[in-house]
């Protein structure tokens, strides 16, 4: 009996050890990558990185200022398209949904979220780049918006579902029409939760590279026009990483560090807002 028991607890201990080992094996490469970004990136970041555009090959120095600006512009544009669609779409699903159409829409959103991002780039290419005969920041923003919409829609829907029905009823009982109740009461009380979703969506598209390869294309210079090719941080990281020049590799590491810092800041902010919305 005792022998039998000890065999069982031995197996228990062994399997526990295996799971601890698995966790260490998972965390090791991830931590190594993170430390590498920190080490290589930190030593390459200086004021030039934020103020100058890339130098031609052979010259040292230079920065990614045009990429930072391009990314900011395209993210802002994508948000202008993606946020209204996502948020108001979610309003339909929670306030007027419940029919078969809303199930189909919900399912479409999940399916859209799982499609490889490079495909949204191909679609934006055929819809915008080919007819306009030019790679453009606009096409880049549209492909990013397509990635953003399902994320915003699903997170907003979750938040709106959590708004208690009594709140809506109280507003309606005062004679406020449903549409005003939705805008002023329902959406307003889910505000912090919706912000969480939006921040996560922005974090997601800020690092997207594949859909920009043949929409925004990238640009070695300052670019301000929406109808022309535009630089973006992830594109620059890609191009510099596959180049053979050490100087460009340094810029790529610096860009990676900046991007990771932006990502972590956004997800920490999302966490903060998320906690606030849960606390109420």
């Amino acid at each position, binding site marked *: 009996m005792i022998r039998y028991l000890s065999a069982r607890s031995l197996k228990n201990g062994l399997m526990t050890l295996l799971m601890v080992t698995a966790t260490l094996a998972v965390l090791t490469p991830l*931590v190594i990558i993170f430390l590498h970004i920190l080490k290589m990136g930190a030593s390459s970041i200086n004021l030039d990185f934020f103020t100058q555009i890339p130098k031609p090959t052979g010259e040292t120095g230079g920065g990614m200022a045009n990429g930072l600006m391009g990314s900011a512009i395209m993210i802002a544009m994508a948000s202008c398209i993606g946020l209204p669609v996502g948020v108001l779409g979610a309003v339909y699903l929670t306030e007027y949904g419940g029919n078969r159409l809303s199930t189909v829409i919900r399912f479409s959103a999940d399916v859209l979220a799982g499609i490889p991002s490079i*495909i949204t780039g191909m679609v934006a290419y055929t819809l915008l780049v080919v007819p306009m005969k030019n790679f453009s920041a606009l096409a880049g923003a549209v492909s990013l918006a397509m990635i953003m*919409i399902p994320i915003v829609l699903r997170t907003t829907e979750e938040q709106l579902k959590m708004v208690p029905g009594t709140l809506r009823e109280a507003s309606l009982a005062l004679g406020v029409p449903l549409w005003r109740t939705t805008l002023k009461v329902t959406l307003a009380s889910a505000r912090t939760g919706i912000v969480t979703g939006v921040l996560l969506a922005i974090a997601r598209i800020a690092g997207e590279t594949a859909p920009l390869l043949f929409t925004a294309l990238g640009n070695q210079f300052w670019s301000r026009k929406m109808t022309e090719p535009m630089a973006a941080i992830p594109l620059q990281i890609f191009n510099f990483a596959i180049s053979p020049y050490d100087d460009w590799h340094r810029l790529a590491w610096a860009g*990676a560090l900046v*991007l990771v810092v932006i990502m972590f800041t956004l997800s920490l902010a999302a966490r903060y807002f998320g906690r606030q919305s849960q606390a109420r």
Partner: protein
Amino acid sequence: MKRKSLFGRFAHGDTLFRWITLLFAASILLILLLMAMEMVKESLPSLQRFGWDFVTSSEWDAVQERFGSLPFLYGSVVSSILAILLATPLSVGTALFITDIAPSKVGSIVAALVELLAAIPSVIYGLWGILVMTPWLQQTVQPFLIDKFGFLPLFQGAPYGVSMLAAVFILMIMIIPIITSITKEVLLAVPLAQKEAAYALGATRWEMLRMALLPYARSGILGAVILGLGRAIGETMAVTMVIGNTPQISLSLLAPAYTMPSVIANEFAETTSKLHASALMEIGLILLFVTLLINVMARLLIWSVTRGSTGGKA
């Protein structure tokens, strides 16, 4: 009187608002349909020209305008499946560690770390892959494999660094956080009574996990793995940067290869002809179809587990 006119003014407000929100909601469906239609339309020249040859031929020659996608299909399938095989046990082990083994503080730190790392963009994994991992593979791992296991066809050839092996490694690292965090959600959705019953019968922790927890969560974990597979197949940047981009089918894991998203990423902006663009579109169409299938399957599986816990049934 005034009150009535106010009502009159807003009577249509609700209807209008309803239609506006419906329009935005329906646009998701429209985007999806538009996407599928555009992809099919643009692939037509290639579909008509090559037919089934497109997926059985391995010739990819833009100059001769002969396009067969077999090397890309092979590269995508092999790299993704190997990555999944390596990632799944590690991910499930980590998820179990987080939910059932570690003290809750340690568990939540590990969970937060894994989630943060899932947020790192793929181009950064690619950057690390090409500048740090492939040189290491080339100088250390691959010579060792050739030396010790070179008699196997899997490990023959010269150490290039960029290779199928590099793609498998980088994919594994990238999908582990995704599979781990979904598996964790699934495990947390298993009713507590399930565990308590096992402990009440005198089970050790491992026996509880194996007999009570894992069977209950099995389909959800399978869903997480399939979702990881979908990610691996669609992953573009990191793989493009480390796989070597050579359209060949080689049994050796040390040889460079190519995947469906990679060839699109490399060639789509610089297509030489209409047919070339159309062939790439058709690869995109195949990719779209496969990922759609995978996602629908995974969602249904995950839903079948988590449904019980949110539906209020014990």
